[in-house]
């Protein structure tokens, strides 16, 4: 996949915007997941991803090695997301993060208030488990489980080798299972305790 980026980059530099469209299509999941990793709770992941692609297009002439487009794009995406957070610092402080601020959909209405609440709790559990992982594991995990990217796609975007990504996801997967099963266990204790109290 890495070998295929360079010709597209060169075509972009010659003014072929369609080639850039192909790069966007190839990396949009990864860039969106990166933006989500930083600012997904504030509903800004799509905007940040779009902004990151625009910035990358504009600065493409400064890209030193075309075959490393993926890691270079990842750096721009991270920087764009961090800048967005900095710009919106005041707004974020006054906002309730997702999922509670999600608009109620027809599906929510069908499930009823209890279903929506349960979904919110599940999301919160996953979010807490991912946040508990070592920092190096977090982005590959989000890329894998949010956008279902393959190991090759994750490797092309992060710049790490496929074997490294496989090892990272193996270890992260084990830790996530432990974290989520702990949560299950504690939840089970709570549910056992409440009826007894009644």
């Amino acid at each position, binding site marked *: 996949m890495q070998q295929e980026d360079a010709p597209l980059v060169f075509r972009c530099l010659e003014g072929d915007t369609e080639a850039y469209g192909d790069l*966007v299509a190839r990396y949009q999941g990864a860039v969106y997941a990166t933006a989500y990793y930083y600012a997904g709770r504030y509903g800004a992941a799509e905007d940040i991803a779009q902004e990151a692609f*625009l910035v990358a297009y504009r600065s493409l002439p*400064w890209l030193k*090695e075309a075959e490393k487009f993926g890691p270079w794009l990842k750096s721009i995406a991270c920087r764009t997301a961090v800048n967005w957070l900095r710009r919106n610092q005041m707004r974020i402080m006054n906002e309730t993060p997702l999922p509670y601020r999600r608009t109620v959909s027809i599906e929510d209405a069908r499930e009823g208030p209890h279903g929506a609440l349960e979904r919110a709790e*599940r999301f919160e559990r996953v979010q807490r488990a991912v946040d508990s992982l070592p920092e190096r594991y977090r982005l590959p995990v989000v890329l894998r489980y949010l956008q279902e990217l393959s*190991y090759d796609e994750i490797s092309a975007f992060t710049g790490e080798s496929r074997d490294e990504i496989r090892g990272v*996801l*193996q270890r992260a997967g084990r830790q996530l299972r432990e974290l989520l099963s702990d949560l299950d266990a504690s939840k089970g204790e709570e549910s056992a305790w409440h009826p007894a109290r009644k």
Partner: protein
Amino acid sequence: MASCTQVKSMLQACIDDELSASERVIVEQHLAQCDACAAVLRRHQQSAAFLFEVLAEHRLGRDLRQSVLDHLPEMDPLRIDVNGVNWREGSPTARRGRLVQVLSVAAAVVLVVLAGVLYVTWPHYPDSPGEAIGVVTYSEGEVKYTPGQGAARILAFVKGIVKCGERYETGPRARLMLTLRGPTNLKMNENTSLRLFDDRRVRVEQGHVWLSVGRDERPFRVETPTSNITVIGTTFDVRVDGETTVVTVHKGRVLVENEVASRELGSGERVSLVGSQGPLLARLVEAAITTRWAELMAPDHEAYALFLREIQPRTVAELQAEQAFVVITKQDGRTRSISSFFFTWLPDPFLSGHCGYDVHIYNDSMMALFSHHIDGSVFANKDEDTYEIQVPGEPIRDANVLHLKVIPDFDAGGIETSFTKVSALGI
């Protein structure tokens, strides 16, 4: 068959469908025969499915391609430091090159700062030839001086300018006199060496030194290998012979210190310091006997004039100095008529280039009666010590007290005369 540990390390890749064909065969064969690993795989699959399911609703819901392409022509100016990003993503070689550049600039900055700190804190006074502080006013025999540490020794001559940091050395049967700002007269006997830090600090390394220190707000310090001598304004001599220092005070008071003791000496007192021993016992001596050699040394006229011109110029305060005298004309109950005034002074045998004086005479009501000018040449004649000013016209009558104001006029020269007595001739 693969072990359970080997298979467990491949379970995540198995769930993610990322196993190679051979790995897949190994895992499938193992799982077919190992219920425990198959159960683990099921739990892993449930956990992964849970993660996919929960996060699925936050997945990117639309294709960004078209919206990005639509905005390409109207892109905003860059909001991030793309060069910084490119730098991080650059090749290792380029990164190293930049690192070397940054480090070399940082090293240069550190060196400049260190040099500045060293320049400020370096003790510069002992070894760097500095500002002119005096003149060689007498020289006899072979006398050498070293302008700074490491410099060659040069013969010293009368009228040579003395600077901070210089070291002077007299050989056998040689003597030297330095007149330093103050004025301080420093006379060196034969086989003596000393270093001048500045006009108020000197280190006597060896030999015999006689000092007449001009009074100044700064104390004058003499260092020897075993002691420190502090004076304000006085005459004394210091003899250094190896570990022994002998200090004799001729006039005034001198504070003598070594590492263990200190003592203040008065006129005619002498103390001997041997090494760092205490206490310092003083005894009365005939001070002048040991410094007969110094009395015979008189400064060269031209060298002294050079000193006054170049080293000890008069300050504004001194230029405005004036002398005032009061003459009482009442004697034996009656007021005398005054016909002339007499100014008396002690002629200085060495000096030339005296200034003149304007003399203004007032009565007891401070009304100006007359003025008179004394020319500077009057004081050049060393045989004269008195000058008469005759009252023009009629003698001054009916004045109980007369005030005389004497103001120097430096047109004729720079040397002032100190009048010892002003008297009036009455009729």
